[in-house]
């Protein structure tokens, strides 16, 4: 009788594990907000019948993770997060190239890697998500420049993510370094430090916090400001620095050594389609496929003053800039 029970227990375990192994699934790390990622991934599953196992992490964390797993890769694709992270990953030899036939006609210039190690799929600019209720109550004008963020009234009222965990925050750091020159950028951040209430791991978290009134200003991407702040019903309004701002080309890429590259390629092709790019309206991302519809009110490249942002430089100097930031800020 006891034997029978043990055998039953063991076969139960095997049954479960075999169930899970039954169908090969595309394994993915994504940096998109989980509430957003599920929309696209569910649509992909519905369109193609391919199962997807996904985990959300911030872009910096994804880079660290695929580096950590280089000897034993766990996923085939990383999805979302600024191209700078992918340029760093390419430099480390963590990606393999794939040229999507669907994206080829419109992916020009800096919208993809020259050697196709990563593929862009949306655009977004760095901006400030402001809690308008706070600004009205304290009679402070909304910040419209990087210098405005240094105002003493904003003491301990700004939030951003750690540049080493978040692609958003690293893009901000690289933007400042390109806009002001490296030394002046670090001087600026040191002056900004008293106004920083705390650092997050995820780039878009500060928008909800601004919405909640925990802080007055969150520094994040334009689409996150709209998707997680304004459109949700929080008193959040986006502004953009008059000196000029940086931006991301949101990217995806095949992970070297991944076991489901065929499925991952299908995912990239699908992501370039009008159907998939249309879906991004839910999150106010600017699609790269010219046939796709842009969400009403979304911030397009023409709406803000952009610097001549060099993502190649930003991606190549990732390690050095972050170490310098940690030494300077001490976090």
């Amino acid at each position: 009788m006891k034997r029978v029970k043990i055998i039953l227990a063991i076969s139960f375990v095997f049954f479960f594990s075999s169930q899970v192994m039954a169908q090969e699934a595309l394994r993915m790390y994504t940096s998109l907000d989980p509430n957003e990622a599920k929309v696209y991934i569910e649509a992909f599953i519905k369109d193609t019948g391919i199962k997807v196992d996904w985990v959300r992490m911030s872009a910096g964390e994804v880079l660290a993770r695929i580096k950590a797993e280089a000897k034993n890769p766990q996923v085939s694709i990383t999805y979302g997060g600024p191209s700078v992270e992918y340029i760093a990953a390419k430099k480390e030899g963590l990606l393999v190239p794939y040229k999507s036939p669907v994206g080829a006609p419109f992916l020009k210039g800096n919208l993809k890697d020259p050697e196709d190690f990563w593929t862009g799929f949306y655009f977004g600019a760095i901006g400030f998500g402001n809690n308008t209720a706070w600004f009205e109550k304290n009679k402070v004008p909304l910040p419209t420049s990087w210098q405005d963020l240094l105002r003493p009234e904003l003491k301990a009222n700004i939030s951003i993510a750690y540049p080493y965990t978040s692609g958003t925050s690293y893009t901000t750091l690289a933007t400042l370094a390109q806009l002001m020159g490296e030394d002046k950028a670090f001087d600026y951040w040191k002056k900004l430090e008293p106004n920083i209430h705390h650092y997050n791991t995820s780039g878009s978290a500060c928008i909800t916090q601004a919405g909640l009134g925990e802080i007055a200003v969150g520094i994040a991407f334009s689409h996150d400001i709209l998707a997680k702040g304004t459109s949700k019903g929080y008193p959040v309004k986006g502004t953009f620095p008059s000196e000029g701002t940086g931006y991301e080309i949101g990217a995806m890429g095949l992970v070297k050594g991944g076991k489901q590259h065929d499925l991952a390629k299908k995912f990239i092709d699908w992501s370039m389609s009008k159907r998939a790019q249309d879906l991004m309206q839910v999150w106010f991302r600017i699609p790269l496929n010219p046939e796709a519809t842009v969400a009403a009110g979304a911030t397009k490249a023409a709406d803000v003053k952009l610097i001549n942002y060099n993502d190649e430089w930003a991606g190549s100097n990732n390690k050095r800039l972050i170490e310098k930031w940690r030494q300077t800020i001490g976090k």
Partner: protein
Amino acid sequence: MQKTRRFVAYLKRIPSDIRKLFREPLLLTGIVLVSAFLFIFIVFPLFKIFHLSFEDDGRLSLRIFFELLSKDYNVQPLIHSLHLGVFVSILGTVIGFVFAYAVTRVDIPWKRFFNVTATFPIIAPPFMMALAMILLFGKQGFVSSMILNNVIRFEIYGFNGLLAVETLTYFSTAYLTLYGVLQAIDPALEDAALDLGASKWHVFKRITLPLAVPGIASAFLLIFSQSLADFGNPMILAGNYTILATQAYLTIVGMYDMKGGAALAILLLIPSIIAFCLQKYWVSRKFYITVTGKPSSTRIKMDHPVTKYGMFAICLLLTAAIFLFYGMIIFGSFVKLWGANHTPTLDNYIHVFTVGWGYIKDTLLLSAIATPTAGLLAMIIAFLVVRKNFPGKRLMELVSLLTFAVPGTVVGIGYILAFNEYPLKLTGTAAIIILLFIFRDLAVGVQTGIAELQQIDPSIEEAATDLGADSATTFRRITLPLITPAFYAGLAFTFVKCMTAISAVIFVVSGKWNLITIAILGSVENSDLAQAAAFSVVIIVFILLALWLINFLVNLMGVKKKISFEKAEAL
């Protein structure tokens, strides 16, 4: 001299012990297997951390370690963690003592109620208390905006907020420890002093308090290690007050800086080990045993109205706070958009059971495999340690108890260092999560098992052996049924720990296998407070269901003793 003689005797015994072992191949295999498992899954990962930090070009060196210690971003968290740990321990111990004293010595109403409520924080999922803190005292918080109308402002991010939530969480530990200690003090002593004309205050000061000192020290050290190991609360509330456990996590997860992470892990490990050793080998030896064997039912009840109602008020206030925190999480989980739109909704639960369903399924499956395995392993270790003689027995006990002292973050870092390469390439599998669950909380099961076994006369087992049963049969047919209560207490504890695990597993999860706590971390990182609250409620419901189920099974099997979950936790 005597020691040497005893040591020589011990050495002389070894060959005969070994010879005896060879006569029982099954027992020998068991010992070898258990030792191997303990070594691979507890000692080896820790060794990897030290190896990484102290090895420089193949030589032992402190260079890398000191280089990391020269960096501000590594030193600050150490200072913060110790500072916070000391304050949480003081406050938590004081509150725990007041609570335990009120319940055991003062004639206050609702004792049973207080006794149960004080254990609530044990099943709190990670992040939950910090989350409730924001919902209550954040700038849009329930208390700050609706009751205080933002007149009084709290800065909950940083030291103050962490002190509040950690005290509220870990005072349970102090309460359970001190409750046991105060219960064990023979009231005859206090009665005698009273009869001799001492005032009640004098009795408290000169008898009760001194007798409770080892318990107080023990509670202090236990809370100190728990505060050091806390990952969930600082992850949300630390603000600019950087904490070791979260910094170590960010260093590895954010930068893949293994050396930096390992060094921080060692900084975290050293004070935890010191606290553990103090508690284990110094404080616990000093416990005063005043139990005389005679049943003594008269407890002095402090009945002075000021003491009585003062203490009652404190207990009431604290339980009210606990209910407020839990209530807030439940309320928050039914709210559409926290801070902006408080219309009731089930959206968050729909999210939990659609997007989160895979997470729930995996958590339940992995916990269901890990829990009985860990329980059984713990009983086997307890059996071997208490009943059998073999070389390395003490070491086996020490190693299995070590897991209690090592913060989860350190274990997690050790696991990714140890099991990411051939021959033990386990990352990405369910096995690594299950193994982590099993070995992470082995200590409590082993402790309860040892305590229970020591109270059982070995003659029953000896009788079985005399009748021809081998060690395995004796264990299965005699020992295991006798220690069933400990076994189930261990099961309950392990299950709670699996369901609420975060600090160690965070390093080993992958896309294929996920856990609810990881989903909460995701929601928290994106500041989706309502979703995080819904996940927390679901975890609590599953834990309560499981505890009920385990209790039900115990009753079904006719075990008389109720599972003493509290006892397991207090150890």
